[in-house]
């Protein structure tokens, strides 16, 4: 039980928040709002799943927000140029994987610290995008772009299903597949992993590639909710995702944590902002409440260790 302390404390925090809402603002549980909250959280969850892998191998990626924007724009531009969605989606995923592979290469092959590498790519991609797009939306997208041309409710279904599928696959992969356990092994002790015949460099690189690919997927899942693409999309995503993952109990020192905790963490953070609207709290308290909840959820289980990865 002690091993899953954080998962429990976060789930408890989430349940308390939901309970408060159930009493004070039952409208929060209306179908529309639930769907909206979940579809908004789905891309974040997909990215968080990838981030979990990266943090499990004792690395971090703060460039996901910028990658997300790059992928969204590329998806949007391709769709507008007339490519069919069956090409656009893989292209976005491939772009993400490519950006992830670049980060991963710098980290795994050159041995550079990931927090610095991704700080550099975070700034570079975002500024490049700003330079190229000058803030202009990608507009006039074909009808088959929004909701993949399937209509709103089917589209929302697809988004949720894909996110659930990704989550389930990763839960299975991390828990039951040899490769998944190696991710934990590498994060737990890199040298021991090497001696056990695992190639830590490859696993690390792979984690970044998977994260990149999932960012690409999440970018599409997010973009198809709208009729056009904002190049500023994904701003602050890295904080949302990292906060969700670490609040969910994944240790920044690697090797510890479960996706179930991440799910709870992401949902908790995803609920805070709409919850404030329903609770009719003044918006200026939002950041303070968010920070407070992060600190409380994390402090509730003091199992963390104080070394930064």
């Amino acid at each position, binding site marked *: 039980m002690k091993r899953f302390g954080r998962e429990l404390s976060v789930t408890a925090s989430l349940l308390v928040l939901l309970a408060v809402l159930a009493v004070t603002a039952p409208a929060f549980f*209306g179908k529309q709002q639930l769907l*909206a909250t979940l579809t908004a959280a789905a891309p974040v969850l997909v990215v968080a799943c990838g981030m979990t892998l990266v943090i499990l191998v004792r690395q971090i990626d703060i460039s996901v927000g910028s990658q997300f924007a790059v992928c969204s724009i590329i998806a949007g531009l391709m769709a507008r140029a007339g490519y069919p969605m069956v090409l656009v989606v893989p292209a976005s995923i491939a772009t993400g994987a490519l950006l992830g592979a670049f980060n991963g290469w710098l980290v795994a092959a050159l041995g550079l610290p990931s927090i610095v590498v991704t700080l550099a790519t975070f700034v570079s991609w975002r*500024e490049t995008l*700003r330079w190229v*797009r000058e803030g202009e939306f990608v507009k006039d997208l074909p009808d088959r772009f929004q909701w993949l041309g399937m209509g709103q409710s089917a589209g929302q279904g697809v988004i949720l299903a894909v996110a659930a599928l990704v989550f389930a696959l990763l839960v299975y992969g991390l828990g039951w597949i040899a490769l998944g356990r190696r991710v934990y092994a590498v994060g737990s002790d890199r040298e021991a992993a090497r001696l056990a015949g695992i190639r830590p460099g490859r696993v690390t690189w792979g984690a970044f590639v998977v994260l990149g690919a999932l960012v690409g997927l999440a970018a599409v899942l997010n973009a198809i909710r709208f009729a*056009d693409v*904002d190049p500023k999309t994904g701003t602050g995503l890295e904080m949302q995702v990292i906060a969700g993952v670490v609040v969910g109990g994944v240790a920044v020192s690697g090797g510890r944590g479960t996706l179930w905790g991440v799910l709870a963490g992401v949902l908790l953070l995803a609920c805070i902002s*709409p919850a404030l609207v329903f609770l009719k709290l003044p*918006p200026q308290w939002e950041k303070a409440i968010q920070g407070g909840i992060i600190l409380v959820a994390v402090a509730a289980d003091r199992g963390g260790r104080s070394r930064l990865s």
Partner: protein
Amino acid sequence: KPSAPDSGSTAPAAGSTSGGVPKPLTVAFLPKSKGNAYFIAARQGAEQAAKELGIKLLFDGPTEPDPAKQNEIVETWITRGVDVIAAACENREGISTALRKAQAHGIKVVTFDADALPEARSFFVNQATPEGIGNALTDEAARLLQGSGEYAIITASLTAGNMIEWQKAIEKRNAEKYPNLKRVALRPCDDLKDKAFAEATAILNANPNVKLLMAICSPAVPGAAEAVKQAGRVGQVKVIGLGLPNENKRYVKEGVTDTVILWRVVDLGRLTIHVAAALARGELKPGATEVTAGALGTFKISGDNVLLGEPFKFTKDNIDQFDF
């Protein structure tokens, strides 16, 4: 009557003239933030005017609205030596220090879009006063709701200077003229369309009686419209806001968004550069009552405010005529 480029350049700013060879006038154009479609449109106009006048245009600004960064950019322009600075001020007091310093270095200063303190600039190219905007939005809301009902505001951030002024103006007009109009929510969207959508959705679900969304920053207008559309409440919930025609054409035509209020941003940029150039060349002096801006025509000056004209309402009928 165009004057010779060097005749009016009495500005002692370093590097503007050297050895009698006339250098083109350098005008530095400072938006609140770069990469914001609104200022990109203004820049279009500014570039057009620069071409018309044969002057050199510098365009730079912070990547996110940030008074300290604006300050820094102005300071660097002082060092660089420009002839005129045309600034849209993220924060009135924040930038005035730097602008005053620029004036002390012989650089002319005009402001546009959002003003600085009066003594920190010569002219303000006023596209609309906060009251003008506030009134236009409130009146439009009242018209659509027939004078009574609940509405909500989506703003960029809680700290942006002009947003705060507009909110105040809206509140004032609301209290004065429309006692039955009630604002029930105010949410920031961090200048992000996706977040505006999420906020609008939450507002609609949390306040079933809201009949109108008023989005007062440009990404929020399409965001709010998309939210209304996805909630399936087109027609029941009106959307109005301050935004660019291009970003909203789709929703205006679909009837989701009723009215987008804005001035002709391209003309704002263009006029600003004309005013800046005229000021530098000494053609425009304090106390003038009119200024001619090339092909744009002649504009009235009231006090030290150059007036662009009334805010413009983009609706289904006219939105196709604009491309910015």
